[in-house]
C-alpha cells in the first residue's frame, strides 16, 4: 500500500495531470473562433481586454456584482487555496524560512517559521469553512441544487477530506508532519529515489493521516484534467473569445451635403 501510493502512484499522477491538461487544451484549440463575438462594452485595446480578464480572475468581479452570497464563500476559498498551494511549495522547499529569505534583514528564520505556521493554519481553516459553506449552499439553494450533478458534490467532498485531514495534522501536533520530513519525502520523489512516507515521530509508526492526505491529493490531481476542476484554464481560453477589442469603422457618409 505504502509502496504503491508513496512510490509509484505519484509518477502516474503527475503524468496524467500534465498529459491530461495538455490533451484537454489541445482539444479546446481544435475549434476556431469563427466570428468576433466579443461582449460589449468592447475593450478599447488588447491591453484593456487582458486587464479586464485578469481583474475578473483576481477579484471574481462578476460573482461579487451579481451574487454576493456566493462571493462570500467562493473568493475566500480560492484565495485560501492559492495561499495554501504557495505555502506548500515554498514552506516545504525552504523549511518554513520563505519570509526570511524574502526579507532577510527584517524577518528572522524563527519568525518566518512562526508566520508560515500561523498563515497555514489560518488559511487552512478559512479553506475548510468556505468549502463547507459552498457544500451547504449547493444543498440548500434551489437554483444551484437543480443544476448540480453528483460529481459537483463529490468534488467539494474530496477537497473537504484533503483540507480536513491537513488541518487535523496542523492542529494536533502529535500527528503533524514536520517541514524536514515532508521535504525529504518530496525530494526523494523529485529525484526519482522515493523514500518512505513520513511517520508519527512519537511512535515511529506509519502516519495514516498523511497517507490519506497524500492519496486524496493525488486522486484530485488525477481527475483534475477530466473534470470541471480545469476551470482555471477554462476561464483564460473562454474569456479570450469573449473579451477582445473590435475596430469600429469610421463615421461620416460619402456624398452627403451636410458633412461631418
Amino acid at each position, binding site marked *: 500500500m505504502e509502496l504503491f501510493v508513496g512510490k509509484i502512484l505519484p509518477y502516474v499522477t503527475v503524468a496524467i495531470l500534465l498529459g491530461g491538461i495538455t490533451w484537454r487544451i489541445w482539444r479546446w484549440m481544435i475549434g476556431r473562433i469563427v*466570428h468576433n463575438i466579443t461582449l*460589449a462594452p468592447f475593450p478599447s485595446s488588447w491591453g484593456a481586454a487582458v486587464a479586464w480578464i485578469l481583474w475578473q480572475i483576481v477579484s471574481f468581479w462578476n460573482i461579487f456584482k451579481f451574487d454576493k452570497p456566493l462571493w462570500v464563500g467562493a473568493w475566500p476559498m480560492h484565495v485560501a487555496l492559492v495561499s495554501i498551494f504557495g505555502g506548500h511549495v515554498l514552506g516545504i522547499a525552504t523549511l518554513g524560512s520563505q519570509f526570511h529569505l524574502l526579507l532577510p534583514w527584517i524577518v528572522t528564520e524563527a519568525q518566518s517559521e512562526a508566520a508560515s505556521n500561523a498563515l497555514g493554519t489560518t488559511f487552512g481553516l478559512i479553506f475548510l469553512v468556505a468549502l463547507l459553506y459552498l457544500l451547504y449552499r449547493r444543498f440548500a439553494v434551489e437554483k444551484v441544487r437543480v443544476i448540480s450533478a453528483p460529481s459537483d458534490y463529490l468534488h467539494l467532498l474530496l477537497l473537504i477530506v484533503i483540507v480536513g485531514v491537513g488541518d487535523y495534522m496542523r492542529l494536533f501536533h502529535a500527528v503533524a508532519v514536520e517541514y524536514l520530513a515532508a521535504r525529504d519525502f518530496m525530494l526523494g520523489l523529485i529525484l526519482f529515489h522515493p523514500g518512505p512516507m513520513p511517520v508519527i515521530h512519537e511512535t515511529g509508526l506509519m502516519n495514516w493521516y498523511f497517507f490519506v492526505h497524500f492519496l486524496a491529493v493525488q486522486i484530485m490531481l488525477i481527475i483534475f484534467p477530466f473534470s470541471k476542476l480545469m476551470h482555471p484554464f477554462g476561464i483564460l481560453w473562454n474569456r479570450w473569445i469573449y473579451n477582445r477589442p473590435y475596430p469600429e469603422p469610421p463615421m461620416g457618409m460619402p456624398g452627403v451635403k451636410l458633412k461631418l
Partner: protein
Amino acid sequence: MPKKIVKGQELSQPARASARVLKRLYVREVPDEHKPAEALKWLDYYRKDRRSLVMAMESCVKCGVCANECHAYLGTKDPNNIPAGRADLMRKVYKRYFTVQGRLFGNLVGAEEITMDTLEKWYSYYYQCTECRRCGHVCPFGIDTCEVTMAGREILWGIGMVPDLQGAASAAVYERGNQGNMTKQALIETHDFLSDEIEEERGLRMEFPVDKPNSDILYVPSSADYLLNPETLKGACQFFEYVGANWTISSHMTEAGNFGLLTEQHSVQRELVERLWRTVAELGIKKIVFGECGHGWRAWKMYTPSLTDYAIAGAGYDYHKRVPIVHVHDEVAAYVKLGKLKLNPRDNRLVPVGQSVTLHDPCNYCRACNLIQNLRVNLYASVPEVREMTPNGEKNFCCGGGSAVLYDDPEMFELRGKFSLKKVAQIKATEADILCAPCSICKAQFYGILHEYHHLDIPINGLIDFVGAALVFKGHRQI
C-alpha cells in the same frame, strides 16, 4: 401544436414547419428513428468547428450565478431555463459521447444518452432561450449560453426540426430577400404612402428611392418596419433627406434582420450576406447603413466580415472594409455630437408636451454591438424627458421575444408573457408615458405582449422615429 409529454413533464414547443416550408428551405427531415444519431454527428461537427461551443460545454462549474439573471428563469422558474441548466441539456449528451469522465462514469457526472426525448427537450428549451447574452455578461467565466442555443438550433435545423415562424421567414429570404415576403411593388406602394404622410406632416415631400443606380448609401430597413413600424422608416428617410444623402433602398435585399444568425448560420445567414454584397456591387454603393434591428445589427456588424470569405465582384480581399457597414444610430450620433443636426425635442410630434420616454436597450445592441452610448446621445437630443430603466445598458433585461421567440401558439404566447415579466416591471417602475424600443423584434414582442398580455397601454416607438420627428427642416412647418 399539442403539448409533448416527455417523462411526465409537459413541454411547450413552437409549431413545426410543414413539409412544404422545409422543401423551400432545402431541408430534408430525417425520420424520427435516425434523428438522435444524426444530431450526434452534427454535435460532433460543431464541437470541432466552434471553440465557443466547446468552452461552453467544458468550462461551467455550476455556480448558479446565471440563474437569477435570466429573465426566462425568473419568469418560469423552470430549472431547464437556468442558462447553466439549458446548456446542460446539450452538455449531458456532450459528456456522454465526447468526454472521458462521461464515458467512464456516466451517471456520476450527469451524462446521458441521446434519444428522441432529448431532442424534443432541445426543441422546447432552445426555442425558449432568447439569445440575449445576459448570462454571458454575468458569468464569471464569460460562458455565453447563446452559443449553445445557436448550436442547438442549428443541429435541430439539420435534422428537420424547424419552427414554422423561423422556417417561413427564412424561406421568404431565399425567395425575395426579406423575411416579410414583400414584393418590390409592395415596397414602392408603402413608400408612396409614407411620402404622402410626411408631406402631410411637414409640408415637404420626401421620396424613398428604390434600386437607384449609382447611390452612395444603401439603407437597409427591417422588413418588419413595412408591416408594423412605419414611423421608423419615416424617421430614417427624414434623416437622410436632412443630411442630403444620395441614398437608396434595395428591393433585392430589404432585410436588416437575419434569422440565420439565430437558427441557421450556414445557409440562411449566408444567403442574405451574399444578397447584400451583390446589391452593393450592382448599385455602386459606398457605405451601408442599417436600420433598427437588434439581432440583425449583430449579424451584420460582427458576422459579415467573417462571412465575407469569398471574392465579390472582383473587388478584392477586404471588401467589407472598403464598403463599411454602419448602424443608422452611430451615424446620427456622430452628427448629434458635433451639433450638426437641428433637433427640437420640445416640438416632437411623437412626444406630446409633458410626456416622458423610457429606453429599452435591445440586448444585441447593448451586449453584442457597443451601441449603448450612441442610443442615449440620440434619444436625449430628440425627446424632452428620458427616464432610464434600472438596470440598463449592458445589464438590461431582454424584452422576452429576443431571437424571434415571437410565437403565437397559446402556450408559447403564455411563455412570452412570462419571459417579459421582468421587463414589464422595469417599464412600470419608470412611470414613463412612451416606450422607445429601437429593435424590430422588441417592438413586435411589446405590441403583442404589453397590450394584450399585461394590458399596459403604452405607445411604442423606435428611436429613429423620435429623431426624424424632432428634426427641424429649414422653412418647413413642424407638426
